[in-house]
């Protein structure tokens, strides 16, 4: 049954989680995911699609926090550094419906 009230006795209840650090590692995440998927053979637009997809929480979190232009730039730079053709067109403003909260 769906419920709105928190129940501290419920073992499935979410508890507060203290963050060990708020260090901003978004940029390094984008570089890492881009390099890994690029080495698997994905092209740049497929990789950007991962960052737009809310089911890929890590990548989509970066897009939500930093905006698509941030992700777009890092993907392009990474492809350039690895001497690969980048098939991305210049960044567009993200559409509200692309970013599911």
């Amino acid at each position: 049954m769906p419920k709105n009230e928190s129940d501290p006795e419920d073992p499935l209840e979410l508890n507060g989680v203290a963050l060990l650090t708020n260090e901003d590692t978004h940029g390094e995440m984008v570089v890492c995911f881009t390099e890994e998927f690029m080495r698997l053979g994905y092209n740049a637009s497929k990789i950007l699609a991962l960052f737009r997809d809310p089911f890929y929480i890590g990548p989509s979190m970066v897009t939500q926090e930093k905006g698509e232009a941030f992700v777009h730039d890092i993907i392009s730079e990474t492809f350039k550094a690895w001497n690969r053709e980048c098939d991305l067109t210049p960044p567009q403003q993200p559409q509200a419906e692309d970013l599911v909260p």
Partner: protein
Amino acid sequence: MSKVYNWQLGREMEYPYDAAFPDRQFAFVFNLNRCIGCQSCTMACKSTWTFSKGQEHMWWNNVETKPYGGYPHHWDVKLLSLLEQSNPGGQTWNGQPADVKAPYGQFKGRTVFEAATTHISPEGAQRALGYLPTDEEWASPNRFEDNPSGSEKGHRGQLAFSSGANTPQHKTWFFYLARLCNHCSYPACLAACPRNAIYKRPEDGIVLVDQERCRGYRKCMEACPYKKTLYRGTTRTSEKCIGCFPRVEGRDPDGGGIPMQTRCMAACVGHIRLQGLVQMNADGSWKEDRQHPLYYLVHVAKVALPLYPQFGTEPNGYYIPPRWVPRPYLRQMFGPGVDAAVERYSNPDRELLAVLQLFGKDARMCFRYEIKEGPKVFENSIRGRKFELFDDTVIGYGADGTKIIETKVEEPLHVRPSQHANSI
């Protein structure tokens, strides 16, 4: 207590039994930069070994979202704090990384075995410092996981699972930590068992619970710092990962008689896993085996590090740390080798790029690799360093010398046409 040498700590330590090592040791390397948390590994194990009555709560392989999740809940936080309480401020490393006998320097703190000598639990003295997780802690293995709540195809913006929970997302870094029993060289589970029901196989170092001898005292569960033995109420015995030993022995018909990687390794869609058997010296260090991919990753490239080496069990699971995660967290989890490992993985050399191609390519175990040099593809500067990419060919061989893998660094990608998406 005996004095044994733990190369991961770079020193001798106390252990309840004399050291005894297998001819070859079950070991694995996981590349955490690649794990997508899909749980295919978890389900491969579950559907092979733990689908019976009384095993419902058992996940011999699990994948948890760090730093939030844990199965059982908070297992590592609890262990680290027990050790800290026993040796406040003293759980530190020093010394210089040396050879194969002390690649991470020396650990100055206390292991679970050493801390147990001064720690008396409510039930009496322990052989390894530990605790027994509660039933609640074993429940809901994916609590604190990241939680995608996406939209159905064609309905962007609408929640697909409107009746499901829409729980908060993590707003900062996280990564997926895939885990199974480490088939430790100094198993705490084995040390703690009052019935001598746990044994380490001399042929491959796999640690097993003898179901005939086990009486379900759960001392292993209390002692294993990784919490990888589990209690089964229907048989009143403890069970754990069996290292898929029939496959490791080469008895899975699919392998054609040569050793295969375990179910959880072979099922990994992210190609993050490479498992094998490594040769051991009489003192427990790894015998030099330069062309063995695991030897290369752990002892030559040093990109793969043990999980919580400070616990002292000498785990045989190694991890390439996720490079975006803040270093203090990684150093606590993988020891002082982290900075060099992340640096090397982020700026891979020619051999590392080739060896990484062996991950996930064939279900049979790779015992040796060879690299055939190919042409230089380009030269560039990445993050201020010179980088060269060569299209080398890497060839992997199985236990009997059969060629099992041949692939290139610049591997071609074949996309299956949509009309044949599900055909084999």
